[in-house]
Every structure is written in C-alpha cells, then in structure tokens.
C-alpha cells in the first residue's frame, strides 16, 4: 500500500505557511494535526497509526501546490479526506491479504486450526496480563478489577457506586479506567511481541 513519496522542501514550507505565518506556531499546529490523525487511525482500529498519520501528512504535503488554500478551507478537513482514503486503501489491502492466506480446508479442520491459534494466544496473553497487572499501583489495580467485574445486570449503577467509593466523578472514573486499560493493552502487546 505504501507509496514512496518524495517531498520537496518548498512544499513542506508551504504546508507550514498554511498552518501559520509564525514558524513556531506552525510547528505546534503540525504536531496537533499529527496527534489528531494518530487518534483517527486508532479509533478506526488500525495497528500502525503513527506511520499512517505520517503517510497522510506526506500525501497532503506532496499535493499542497495543487490545493486551493486561498479560501477558508480548514486544514483538518483536508487532512481528514486524505486520511479516510488511506484507511480505505489499508482495509482493502488487508482484505486481499487475508483472502490470499485463507486456506482451502474443510470447516472442522479450520475450526481446529483456529482453536490452536486462539489457545496459544490466550495462554501467552494471560501470562502477560498477570505480569502487566502487577506493574499497576495497588489502588489502580483494585479500581480496574472492580470496574470490569460487574456481573450485575445494571452495569451503569454499579460503576456509579464504584465512583462514589473511590471519591471520583463518574466521568473521571471512566477516564481513569480508559487510561489504565490503554496502558495495560500496550504492556500486553509489548509482552506478547517479546514471547
């Protein structure tokens, strides 16, 4: 999918000028857009979000001379358009790869293969999860455990109760758990790659 894009200095200067006449502000704006694009690719479920964000910026930069920047076009909207195309290319490329890799075997054989892969993943994953949970502070681990261990029918109410227990607003509790989960997920992925 990845195309080699040769960027010219004049195009990059033009991009920064588009962000702001002040180079420092333009640099900050560049970073803000990059972070926004990384978030976009993360929300879309793409693994390589940083590289895809850089790819988006490179493509916009390469085409900046052909873009009409005189009007009130918001940079975000332009970057979004390019990012969406890159996402669609990514999805269709992955779909092709998965199709090529799909073995022509009967269903029972396919199921067994799936189980052996999944079992292997789960066994390694559980080891990593235990290791990563131990890296959390005790209070954070307890909040995480209580948050996700709600076997009640009313998940919202039990989380409201937990927020009261730990003296947080519900929003702050959600945010805290969301960050804990992301850090755990990163830790597990790193751990799985090392195994």
């Amino acid at each position, binding site marked *: 999918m990845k195309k080699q894009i040769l960027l010219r200095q004049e195009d990059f200067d033009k991009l920064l000028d588009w962000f702001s006449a002040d180079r420092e502000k333009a640099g900050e704006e560049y970073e803000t857009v990059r972070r926004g694009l990384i978030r976009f690719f993360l929300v879309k*479920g793409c693994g390589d979000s940083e590289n895809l964000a850089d790819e988006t910026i490179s493509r916009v930069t390469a085409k900046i001379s052909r873009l009409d920047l005189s009007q009130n076009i918001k940079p975000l909207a332009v970057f979004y358009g390019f990012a969406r195309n890159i996402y669609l290319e990514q999805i269709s490329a992955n779909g092709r790869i998965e199709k090529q890799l799909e073995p022509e075997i009967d269903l029972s054989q396919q199921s067994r293969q799936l189980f052996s892969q999944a079992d292997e993943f789960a066994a390694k994953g559980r080891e990593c999860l*235990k290791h990563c949970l131990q890296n959390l502070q005790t209070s954070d681990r307890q909040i995480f455990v209580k948050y996700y261990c709600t076997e009640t029918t009313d998940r919202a109410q039990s989380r409201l109760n937990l927020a009261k227990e730990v003296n947080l607003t519900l929003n702050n509790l959600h945010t805290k758990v969301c960050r804990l989960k992301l850090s755990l997920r990163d830790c597990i992925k790193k751990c799985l790659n090392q195994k």
Partner: protein
Amino acid sequence: MSNEQLKNYFLGALPQTEVEEIELRVIGDESFTETVQLAEDDLLEDFLEAKLTVSENELFEKNYLITAERRDNLRIFAMMKQCAAGLTGEAEHSSLPKDNEVGFFRKISNYFSLMSRPALAFAMLIVIGCVVGILVYQNQTSSEFATLEKKYEQINQRDFSDLGQFKQSSTLILVSGNLRGAPNSGGSGKVSADNLPENTLFRLVLPPENKSVSGYSIKLLKDRKVIFGLNQIRSHDNQFGQEIRLLLPAEVLSKGQYVIELQNQQTNSAPLSYLFVVQ
C-alpha cells in the same frame, strides 16, 4: 453525541454525514476521543456479555471486527475482563469502603425514618405483596424447571467418547468468550433454526492449561435467563487438549442469543462463557 450514536458508529450503522462529524471531532478534540473509546469499550463488553441483539451482533462481526488490531484488542479486552473477574476476591479484601460498612445505627435510623412516612410505608406493603406473588410463581415454575433438567440430564448421560455416533447430529465447536474474534472465526457460533436436527452436539473447548477431568457444571442461558443447568459433567480429550461435550435437543433452541456458562466446581475457577446464536 449520545452513547447510542457512538455505538452505531462502531457498528457501521450511521449515515455518512454523522460518521464524518464524529471522525472530524476525533481529529480535532482529544477529550472527545476518550468519550468515543469509552463507547467502544461498552460495545465490546456488550458483545462479550451477549447483550447485543442478533442484528447488532451481525453488524459487529461484519463492520467492527474488520481489522486484525480490533480482533486482537477484543481478545485482550476479554482476557482483562476475565482476569478481573478472577481477581475479585483480592479487590473485596481491599481497603476500599464497602456498602455493608455503613454504620448499624445509621441503618436503624434510616429504617425508622422510612416507617414514619405513610406513603413510603404503603409502597413497602406493595413491594412485600409483589415479593410474595413472585415466590408463589417461582414455586410453580421450579417444578417445570426440575422436569426439564432431569430430561436433559438423561440425554447427556450417554458416553460421548466416540464422536462417530453423532454423525446424524449437527456439531458446533465453541471457544470461550475470551478467545472469540480469532482470525477466520467468521461463521462459528451460529446455527440456523430452520435446519436444526433432533440434537445438536456442542463441543466446548477448554483452556490449554486445564487439567481437571470431572466436576464440571454448565448453565444454559438465553437473554440472561437460566434455561437449565447440569452438574457432574466430565471432559474429553481432543487433538489439542480437552473439551466438554454437550447434547442439546432442537426443542430447547429457538431463535436468539445463548450463553453456555461452564464452571469447574472442584477448582472453583472463574466460569467460562461460550456464546452462540440461533438464527
């Protein structure tokens, strides 16, 4: 932006204009992204707890699980939830205050302040009446429940060692909820209500570290209601480890989402959930 809209965003059930609105906000607003990620978490939990409708489930598999990253995330998320469930005991013994630690005198004073209000006392009488009604109803249904359990217990008392004897039955191999979403999993966990044979054999794959042979109990749930439960079930060896074999007659399977909860009573480990849909 409501949670329902964000859920539909991930299910691919929103019009393009709303999709663009959400995605532009994600790029421009970091705090909004956290809201979106929370809605995604809720969706994953609903999926793992079989709380999605049949059509939502289809959209989830068709439109959400389209990248390897998301499938991996689902598996990791399921493991986190399962591990959290296994660690509940630890959290219960933590220093976090518990509901039952509210003072005794406070409870007494709450009780009397309630009784001093006639409207609330009347409401309590109605509640007591409802509870009595439910108990009478449960007494009636529990005898039907026992009959069902006895019938399915008999069906499952046969020897399952030789799989060849089930050639006439349809077979469904299920992996526990924490292993769902593995590559090429599309299609597993679904049976068609139109072509159900007299009995369907369910093969529930056990985790590789599993060592127990006997002492398993299962519960079959539909829409979070227990249909029946069986005890003293034993595991069987397969090529990759062990599995539980369970025979369910067609009469117990109507259209809807089911969960088979499996627990080993000897080891008292966290229950495993196996999901399937009758379409």
